[in-house]
């Protein structure tokens, strides 16, 4: 029984996709330990007109496709939204564990020698208090404040009390970065890192680091959920992901948020907010400078690189400083790539669908590549010592103030190189650019007057 229990506790799984034979599952269904659910359930909404809306049991999506199914010889609905996790349809079964609870495991080692800055310590303490009072907490900490470290004491406190904890984030890159750090700090704790294409686990983990997407596979599992980078794409635009977080936590569990750029909505949602305006190394945030770069798109389309952009890049190359240049669209970036490669043939470009993204970023860190052209995909979660950053077309709508703040947050993260150039090339200063600059300056001002 332990195996099935360990696998299914807190999970909601397609019956055919479990590693157990059908007879075993039937046996536990008879005992009442496993509860089967219909893949698509009807949600009756009582309004003026009573409507019967069909909904995917796993992701909550209500836009379903239908066809004549040969298995049940009738019309079947299926959900396209979460189809990559195995199709959920009217005649598939999702199963959850409703049997005896997993034995609490409270012996965890906390192997962390680092120290928190006074600002981090204060926020960490406030977060702990909120956890004990069961109220939602938002940690609003500038890029490079050391958000992950201040989570460690809170997570340890929860684990030691036998709670099941999840650290969720919209970005796979962030999961990949966080998981090894947590494993190092909690060496005896079973930790699962879950993201699209991650290896499957069949055992029970008390701490789960996952993309918000993977939380679709959990139901009433967690005592506490931390959402890191809670304002990142696609979490904010995809209702299913917010549904996933709500579904994955236990009914009375609380969600805490951590981000450098909270939306107004998020500020309202939280019961308590801790603000950290100071980076862990104590140096101020790099303030962006604005530089007019007129008709950059026309220039690039004509196969010319503006002299400003050229000299900026050349300076980075000459001084051996790694650089990132952000572009508003993949199309413009790809047109610009050969022009940059005339300066140095090793310059590469990355975007969201690039299969070699991880490797290219690694090459930049190892200085095998002098610089990268990128879309907003690299706005978060990457740390490269002494990196210089330029945004081409900072006036484009895709560069919201929070995107610009996050992009700026890449600069000066390491103690050895706390400064660096952050330039927004534009043709017309936008409200978002002004807001980003003002926000950064406000944080810096607060830092000086504690």
């Amino acid at each position: 029984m332990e195996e099935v229990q360990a696998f299914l506790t807190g999970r909601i799984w397609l019956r055919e996709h479990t590693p157990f034979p059908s007879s075993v599952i039937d046996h536990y269904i008879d005992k009442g330990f496993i509860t089967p659910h219909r893949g698509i359930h009807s949600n009756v909404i009582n309004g003026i007109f009573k409507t019967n809306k069909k909904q995917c049991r796993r992701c909550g999506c209500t836009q379903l496709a239908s066809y004549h199914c040969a298995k049940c010889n009738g019309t079947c609905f299926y959900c396209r939204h979460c189809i990559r996790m195995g199709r959920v349809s009217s005649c598939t079964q999702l199963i959850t564990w409703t049997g005896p609870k997993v034995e609490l495991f409270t012996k965890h080692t906390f192997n962390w020698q680092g120290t928190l800055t006074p600002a981090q310590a204060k926020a960490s303490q406030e977060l702990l208090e909120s956890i004990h009072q069961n109220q939602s907490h938002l940690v609003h900490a500038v890029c490079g404040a050391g958000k992950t470290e201040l989570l460690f004491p809170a997570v340890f406190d929860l684990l030691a009390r036998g709670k099941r904890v999840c650290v969720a984030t919209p970005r796979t890159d962030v999961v990949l970065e966080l998981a090894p750090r947590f494993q190092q700090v909690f060496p005896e704790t079973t930790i699962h890192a879950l993201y699209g294409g991650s290896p499957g686990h069949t055992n029970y983990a008390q701490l789960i680091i996952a993309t918000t997407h993977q939380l679709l596979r959990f139901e009433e599992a967690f005592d506490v959920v931390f959402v890191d980078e809670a304002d990142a794409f696609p979490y904010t635009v995809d209702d299913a992901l917010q549904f996933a977080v709500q579904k994955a936590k236990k009914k009375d569990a609380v969600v805490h948020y951590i981000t450098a750029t909270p939306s107004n909505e998020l500020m309202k949602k939280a019961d308590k907010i801790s603000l950290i305006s100071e980076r862990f190394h104590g140096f101020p945030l790099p303030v962006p400078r604005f530089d007019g770069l007129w008709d950059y798109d026309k220039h690039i389309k004509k196969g010319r690189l503006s002299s400003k952009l050229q000299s900026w890049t050349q300076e980075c190359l000459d001084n051996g400083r790694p650089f990132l240049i952000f572009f508003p669209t993949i199309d413009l970036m790809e047109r610009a790539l050969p022009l940059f490669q005339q300066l140095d043939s090793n310059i590469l470009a990355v975007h969201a669908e690039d299969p070699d993204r991880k490797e290219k970023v690694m090459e930049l860190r190892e200085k095998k590549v002098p610089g990268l052209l990128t879309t907003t995909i690299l706005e978060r979660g990457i740390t490269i010592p002494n990196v210089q950053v330029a945004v081409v077309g900072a006036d484009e709508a895709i560069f919201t103030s929070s995107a610009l703040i996050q992009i700026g947050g890449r600069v000066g993260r390491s103690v050895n190189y706390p400064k660096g150039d952050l330039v927004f090339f534009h043709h017309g200063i936008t409200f978002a650019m002004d807001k980003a600059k003002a926000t950064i300056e406000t944080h810096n001002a607060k830092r000086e007057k504690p």
Partner: protein
Amino acid sequence: MNCLTCSSLFLETSSWQRLFFMRQAEVICSKCKSKFEKAKDIEHETQWIGTLYEGALDSLTSIYDYNEWMKQIYRQYKFQHDIELAKIFAQDLRHLQKVQDLIVPIPLHPEMLIERTFSQVDQLLLAANVQFKHVLSKMRNSSQVKKSKNERMTSEINFEVCTNVQNQSILLVDDLYTTGTTLRHAAFVLKQAGAQKVNGITLIRA
């Protein structure tokens, strides 16, 4: 309209053609659509010369090339059971509505059909609103997928004809043409049962 494959929003251009000829609306964006490649015209009969099946298939047409993009879409359609994707190819198969021949899809074994919950060939034709008739049935539930090229080409016939096809002109429809064994086996049994002519069409040519 949201693109069926990349789910990005796209605008459908209105045209006179659409208004008067009631062309079906696009279901994928132009960017996704441009990733499909038309199949190249490759000689298909040569390797069958001298075998039992020489001349069984009178002609063969394939619409798309099996490029990486098509592989991805096809996998999502056939193995992740995303039947909605059949609509992408509705426009390419629509001309079969006017074909005089009897349209015969390659069938699935009944057990396989229940396991997969749908027949990938039937759904393509249904999406394109093409009338068809099942005259073949599969005898054994075996898959070609794991076999080598040689094993496929020398495998035993797995079809039988279940209705009268005497003097009929038939158009066989399949999803994917790899070695051509399936279509030739089907054409062979149909000819033996008295079919006058057997042509073939596949969506993809590997």
